[in-house]
């Protein structure tokens, strides 16, 4: 394999993470927010892989697998919740769920 600077890989991970953050804060659609969270998780996984590659160990991949399992469970429950919310509120607007105000 060719050599890839770890710095660049980490930089890629950070850029993706930043984009995911912007998505969570900027969009009001619940589905898009959840997708942005997935982007962030993916970016974190990428960082782990990059670290594992730098040290030549497979631990990075193991961490990535665990993150993947976590993301899967989280998406399942999260989407179920979004369905319930849509039933209750009639909209996918995140700002509509503000009854805990005050």
């Amino acid at each position, binding site marked *: 394999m060719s050599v890839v600077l770890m710095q660049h890989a980490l930089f890629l991970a950070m850029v993706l993470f930043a984009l995911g*953050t912007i998505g969570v804060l900027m969009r009001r659609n619940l589905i898009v927010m959840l997708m942005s969270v997935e982007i962030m998780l993916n970016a974190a996984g990428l960082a782990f892989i990059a670290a594992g590659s730098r040290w030549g160990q497979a631990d990075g991949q193991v961490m990535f697998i665990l993150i993947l399992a976590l993301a899967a469970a989280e998406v399942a429950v999260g989407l179920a919740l979004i369905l319930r919310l849509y039933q209750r509120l009639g909209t996918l607007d995140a700002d509509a769920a503000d*009854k805990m105000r005050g």
Partner: protein
Amino acid sequence: MLSLLAFIPAFPLLGFAILFVTAGLLPKRWITTIGVGSVGISAFLALIVMFAFLGAPQPYTKVVWTWIAVSSFTPHIGFYLDALSGLMMLVITFVSFLIHLYSAEFMSTDEGYNRYFAYMNLFVASMLVLVLADNLLFLYLGWEGVGLCSYLLIGFWYRDPANGLAARKAFIVTRVGDTAMAIGLFVLLTNLGTLDIQPLMQQAVVHWPVGSALPIAAAALLLGGALGKSAQLPLQTWLPDAMAGPTPVSALIHAATMVTAGVYLIARTHVLYDLAPPVQTAVAVIGALTLLLAGFSALNQTDLKRILAYSTISQIGYMFLALGVGAWSAAIFHFMTHAFFKALLFLSAGVVVQRLGEEHDIFRMGGLRERLPLAFWSFLIGSISLAALPLIDAGFYSKDLILWEAWSDGALGPWLWSAGLIGALLTAIYIFRAVFVVFFGPVGLEPSGPTGWRVAIPLVVLSALALVGGFVEIPPYLGNVPAFSRLMQSALPTPPAMATAGSSSELMLSAIAALVAILGVGIAYISFRRRPAFLEALVQSPASLALQHFWETDWGFDWLYDRALVRPFLWISRIDQGDVIDRFYGGLASLSRVAYRQLSESETGRVRRYAAGITAGSVVLIAILVFA
């Protein structure tokens, strides 16, 4: 035997503690037993102690423990027994016991039964502390204690705001006196170094020349305290309003015991007054003026209890008059007889008022002679003693002694004597006015309910004492029994007039006094039984009505104090409501309110905003980690 002295105030205090802690839990019989029994035990112990004392009459001190120990100032919890405090202790415990027994029936239907006996026991304990204290600080403790209990008991029926107002008035007016007394204690302490009474008196004689500024200041300040507690001019306005409390309270506190605390204080510290002649003269003058003023006021009252209240003020004026001319033992003698007949009057008045369904206006009563015979005879005996009708009653001997001492006191003597004489006339008129209006004539309201043995026994006992209590001090021309003054000699110096006792002038003066008393009864009889037309016209004339109203409202003192003191004070407190300190605390409150609203606004309920908060926070944290 004498060492039982410390237990005498302890038993009522224990009774108070038990009743206070078990408020509302004990059955009524137990409350009665504890409340009346504790004072009964005290009375019994007082008898035993006095018997032991009379066997070997020298002053006895019992120190229980040291209260404060600050460099050279070490007041104790100590009790001092001599003839003066012993006599007062005996009268207080005995009369208190009778009144507690009376209360057991009088207050039996009241819902505050437990509270009543708790406060009464505390009062008796405080009063005993006051008279038995061996140093002025401990005396002040008892002084304040009786003031507190007076407040609690006047406002006993607290649901009526008028009672609370009367209680507060009593407390505040006596407070003015108490403050003067406290300053007097400071003067004594800083100049003489101690507050133990006997050493204090000795130090005063050694260090202070007669008539110098310091004893005058100290004596005048202590006099201020005595004026407040004993309801003399100018602090007498609280006592008529204090009749808002239950009648046994009026009998005990505002007739027989608390209001005589001032008399006791002056008698106890008589050395100071000997060192300050101007103040002593002031005492006599105040006494004389008060007895006249109160006499005129009593004449115009329609409330039975208020008549008796003004009568109390007037009689204590007599005691002050005696103190002022140096007749210390005469004042104490009158205290003893007054305790008997005034308590008797109040208790029988209580029977009348309660049987008529809480009716106080004497002009709505009438003809109760047949209906309430026990109350009638008790009230009559009390009135005879109060008016000091000759020979048969106790009041005659004590009042006569005072008048004789007043006459013999130098240049001011004849004036004081005339004031006392006019006061005696007024006394006879107003009390027999009450007797004739309430007990004679056509029946007004019909009384209801029976009178039990617990009310009857105190009335009978006090009637007996009101009749024979004066026979311990009979002047020479009538039988010469100077037992009382001889007893008092060990504690109080003999007045100068005693040297010329028995002379013909004394006989003539007492004859004049006796005639005046009988004249007073006659005037009352004519005015209120016969009711001739010309008197009616005189009474109803506008000038007379105005004068009557002026006297009825206590010579305008309430109006004066209200205008001169109360309203300016309320005005000042009203305009001071928004001052700097208030605004500071208000600012704190509004600051927290603003902060609350701000924080409340920050909780929008929107997820994105919370996420933004988390992000910003983590950014800051990471910045700290990276750059620091």
